[in-house]
């Protein structure tokens, strides 16, 4: 096969306060899928932002199609044929699905939008990528995070381009949707489009990519064909230092007989029906289900974030006949939550690392007479940051200067210094690198080993099966089945996920 | 009111007989106008021969609202409008419409512009004081206590207000006659607090200042507070205009020298009486009435 170099980067460097990228030499050929891996904060997103014209490199040069390529802003890069799906969702909540999909090329006549045509185009596109159930005329905000992610991918896929950059596109997709995405990527690849694919899931990378490049601390340490390197070698390359945490330890259960939480006949509008289950101390309970099955809704309901609901929730010995009405009441009763959408509601991007870590425990642990004890805060957060393995420059840097994965660790870390007994984790490893993911598992294990418990929602079934004692499955807002570690089989769990699915149902009506 | 009467028929005719008069004021947040309004209300409850609707605007500059009030009063079917116009020109077209709709209009307090009334071919009688001569009277009283060449400053009202301008001119007349030197003349927008700040600045720039002539008493109050805070009470004299309650105590205590009384309480009543007169006799030709402006000093208060 004759390869034609579509894009190349030559000695690209970038530094913010510190060096983030140094001397990157990278090339992308037409019709290849080029995987990009690296630990959180290695500089993957920064690199892609430079290609997309969102960040301007300090030095080095790029070529596209043999010509010098120096995008100054997003408009120029789009004109040059670069499309990008960003790591964080960037949809516009007050617009409809269709309008979001075609935002920069709305079909118009004299400035007036051709509404019918827009809907038709959108429906066609949604059909093509296998989301026929989404009504193109409904507000984007009414979709769950997973569906939003798919819409965002669809948006980029629909646009004519030479280079397509996907920054962790699969982080909130389940295996079926991921499969769907891959089929589509292969189609694009055949059309001669060069694709840069960022992911922390090594199995995916070996499945779909042709070549792999590995970034470590801003340096490109390896580039080569995918079939020339094994996953464990990749892990070696990603982080030579933390090798010890990467050995997969055998599963150990800390489950005790005492109950930690009991949910009885919980019902939330029409999104959840009659959910009952219990959680034991030291247990890690997984929640599996398809996108939109109501997993996020369930965690929100337990945590008191959804106000109109019926049923009862009991925590430890205290009997709570009524569900928690407000999050702070749940928190007082020893619950903690890691929400799904990190940027929207998980972290405080404009506060610094320390302030993010101590936000939940500020009043109880870090203040006297209402005055904050900053020295103590710094001390504790220093320890915590190294325990979490966050890569950072300074405790007082703003959180938005951290890479996505490191932000997630901070969001998890804040609960470790509270008296929280039960943690509700919604897609906690979304966007976390393989090494950090393992260290997060270790943190979870350490957490439950003290008799505390975890409920964890994840779209990655392997992850649930690797870390949980028990898995419950939601489908269409109902709890369909419970699986125990001793007896579960992944096919059965997947089957349970589809149990109630009425095909062709429109989620917006 | 119809409930008092046993038969609906007579109630109806009662309402028909009693003329309805709309009193449209300038700012009601100003004591001068609220006194005026109270006078009118008392007159109405003593006479019971007409119905009174009082309205005002939130400050003296909201012309659009006052024009709207005229239209609203006409639409609500009043027989006469007595108005203290916020502007001597802008109200004329609206009042012309009212006259054309058969409503009797009487102008009080602030005289409408003659030449524009001619252009609009209406004639509206004016009942009210002469601000300029009133201010001159106050200014001259002040000048008697100063010597020629003494420095004085004027605190103007809103620069756009007609009677504000008249008062400034009156003060200037008095100063010219007595050969006083006007060192500065600035607007404090009728406001106490602004007058306070302004006076402090003026006093520090002109250490030899002998007097401040404020175009209304609210600003005089601000000036007095400023003078006190700089400990210059003995050197700087203050005069005001309007004779509001708060100023009287200061006059009694020799802190303020003089003010002018336009008999606010009677002003609207004169206007209403003029309107009633014309309602009674459609052919009566109403002439302008000049109401008195009195000089108020410590002596007159006792």
């Amino acid at each position, binding site marked *: 096969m004759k390869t034609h170099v579509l894009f190349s980067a030559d000695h690209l460097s970038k530094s913010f306060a510190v060096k983030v990228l140094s001397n990157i030499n990278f090339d992308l050929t037409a019709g290849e899928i080029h995987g990009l891996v690296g630990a959180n904060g290695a500089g993957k997103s920064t690199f892609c932002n430079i290609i997309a014209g969102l960040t301007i490199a300090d030095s080095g040069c790029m070529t596209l199609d043999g010509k010098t390529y120096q995008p100054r802003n*997003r408009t120029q890069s789009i004109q040059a044929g670069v499309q990008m799906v960003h790591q964080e969702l960037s949809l516009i909540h*007050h617009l409809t699905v269709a309008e979001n999909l075609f*935002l920069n090329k709305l079909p118009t006549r004299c400035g*007036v939008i051709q509404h019918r045509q827009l809907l038709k185009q959108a429906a066609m596109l949604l059909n093509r990528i296998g989301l026929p159930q989404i009504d193109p005329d409904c507000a984007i905000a009414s979709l769950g995070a997973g569906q939003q992610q798919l819409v965002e991918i669809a948006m980029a896929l629909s646009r004519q381009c030479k280079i397509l950059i996907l920054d962790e596109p699969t982080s909130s997709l389940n295996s079926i949707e991921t499969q769907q995405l891959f089929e589509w990527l292969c189609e694009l690849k055949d059309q001669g489009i060069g694709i840069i694919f960022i992911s922390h899931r090594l199995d995916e990378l070996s499945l779909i990519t042709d070549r792999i490049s590995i970034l470590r601390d801003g340096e490109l340490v390896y580039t080569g064909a995918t079939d020339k390197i094994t996953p464990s070698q990749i892990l070696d390359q990603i982080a030579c230092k933390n090798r010890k945490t990467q050995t997969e330890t055998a599963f150990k259960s800390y489950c005790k007989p005492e109950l930690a939480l009991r949910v009885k006949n919980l019902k939330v509008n029409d999104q959840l029906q009659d959910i009952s289950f219990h959680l034991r101390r030291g247990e890690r309970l997984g929640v599996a289900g398809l996108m939109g099955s109501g997993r996020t809704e369930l965690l929100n309901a337990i945590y008191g974030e959804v106000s109109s609901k019926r049923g009862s929730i009991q925590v430890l010995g205290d009997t709570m006949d009524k569900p928690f009405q407000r999050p702070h009441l749940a928190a007082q009763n020893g619950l903690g939550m890691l929400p799904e959408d990190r940027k929207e509601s998980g972290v405080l991007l404009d506060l610094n690392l320390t302030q993010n870590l101590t936000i939940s425990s500020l009043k109880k642990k870090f203040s006297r007479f209402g005055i904050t004890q900053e020295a103590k805060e710094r001390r504790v957060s220093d320890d915590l940051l190294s325990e979490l393995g966050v890569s950072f420059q300074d405790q007082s840097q703003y959180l938005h200067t951290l890479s996505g994965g490191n932000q997630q660790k901070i969001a998890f870390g804040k609960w470790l210094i509270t008296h929280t007994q039960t943690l509700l984790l919604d897609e906690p490893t979304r966007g976390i690198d393989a090494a950090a993911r393992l260290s997060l598992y270790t943190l979870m294990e350490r957490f439950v080993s003290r008799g505390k418990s975890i409920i964890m929602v994840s779209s990655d079934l392997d992850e649930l099966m690797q870390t949980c004692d028990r898995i419950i499955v939601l489908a269409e807002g109902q709890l369909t089945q419970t699986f125990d570690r001793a007896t579960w089989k992944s096919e059965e769990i997947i089957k349970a996920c589809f149990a109630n699915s009425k095909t062709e149902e429109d989620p917006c009506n | 009111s119809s409930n008092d009467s046993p038969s609906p028929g007579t109630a109806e005719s009662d309402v028909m007989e009693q003329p309805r008069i709309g009193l449209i004021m300038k700012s009601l947040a100003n004591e001068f106008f609220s006194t005026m309004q109270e006078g009118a209300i008392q007159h109405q409850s003593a006479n019971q021969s007409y119905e009174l609707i009082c309205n005002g605007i939130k400050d003296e500059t909201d012309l659009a609202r006052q024009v709207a009030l005229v239209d*609203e*009063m006409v639409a609500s*079917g009043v027989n006469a409008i007595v108005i203290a116009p916020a502007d001597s020109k802008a109200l004329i077209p609206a009042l012309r419409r009212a006259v054309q709709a058969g409503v009797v209009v009487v102008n009080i307090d602030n005289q409408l512009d003659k030449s524009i009334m001619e252009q609009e071919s209406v004639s509206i009688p004016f009942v009210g004081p002469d601000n300029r001569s009133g201010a001159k009277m106050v200014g001259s009283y002040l000048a008697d206590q100063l010597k020629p060449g003494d420095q004085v400053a004027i605190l103007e009202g809103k620069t756009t207000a007609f009677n504000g301008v008249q008062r400034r001119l009156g003060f200037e007349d008095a100063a010219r006659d007595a050969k006083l030197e006007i060192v500065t003349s600035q607007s404090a927008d009728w406001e106490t607090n602004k007058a306070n700040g302004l006076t402090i600045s003026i006093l520090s720039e002109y250490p030899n200042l002998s007097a401040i002539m404020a175009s209304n008493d609210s600003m005089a109050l601000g000036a007095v507070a400023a003078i006190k805070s700089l400990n210059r009470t003995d050197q700087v004299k203050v005069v005001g205009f309007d004779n509001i309650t708060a100023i009287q105590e200061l006059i009694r205590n020799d802190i303020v020298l003089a003010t002018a009384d336009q008999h606010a309480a009677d002003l609207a009543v004169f206007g209403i009486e003029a309107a009633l007169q014309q309602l009674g006799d459609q052919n009566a030709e109403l002439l302008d009435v000049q109401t008195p402006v009195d000089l108020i000093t410590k002596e007159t208060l006792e």
Partner: protein
Amino acid sequence: MQLKTAKHFALHHAGLLVVLGILTLIFGLGTDSFFRFQTLGVIANQIPDLTLVAVGMTFVLIIRGIDLSVGSTLALSSAALGSLLIDHDQPVLLAIIAAVLVGSLCGAANGLISVKANIPSFIVTLSMLEIARGLTKLITNSETKYIGSVIEPISNPISPISFSPAFLFAVTVVVASQFVLRRTVFGRYCIAIGTNEDAVRLSGINVVPYKVTAFVLCGVFCGIAGIFHAAKLSTADPNAAVGMELSAIAACVIGGTSLMGGRGNVSSTFLGVLIIATLQTGLATLGVSDPIKQIITGSVILIAVISDALRQRWS
């Protein structure tokens, strides 16, 4: 389609319509004249200027800006009109064009400075509030300028229907702006920019022209409002529309426009204007005292917004 739109409108604005209905009923029963057709005309002919300004404000609020200079811009444009007509004896058409131009220049200055220099529009337009008012006083020499009857027809009721051309124009602007907001690229981008400006930029769209246009549009509407204002009073008033920014924003917010951008409707802004105007006229017709008027006005605005919020929570 037409029917569906009307029903949708009624449903969407149920809370506000109820408040408006109750107000009308109270004033109608409380006075002899409120139900007269003439009163309707009086209300209608009062609001063209506020309506235009509030529509412009809606666009600016939607892109997450604010324009505090609307009142001063209105005054400046009517001063320009008056000065050209009276002091310089220019033809009416020229003066009208100049007035609109003045408005659009103020808007453009607001937009360009705040967008290009990336400064909160609150402070830019606050400065413009002072500057434009100062210029107005300079132009008019701090005196009201009597213009006379040349421009009066704009604001005089057309005899059979009792609405003025200005009012009809304002209603047209409301309808057209609602269309622009909902159905054109400009409108959708305004909403998108107000919701998530970064995301719009990431889509490769240059947000600057859209944001500036929103301010210019607001300025143009203020300019036209200035003409209407002058026509209504037959004068150019240097103190015209002092504090109008708060009424305009109140109308927008009563109508559900968000001050945080991305959400708003011109049609409901118009309902907000109607509520404010009905309240004013009604209270004046009743002749309640000034302090009570203020207390009632404040309370009704609050009640309108609360009732709308409640309705949204139920549905």
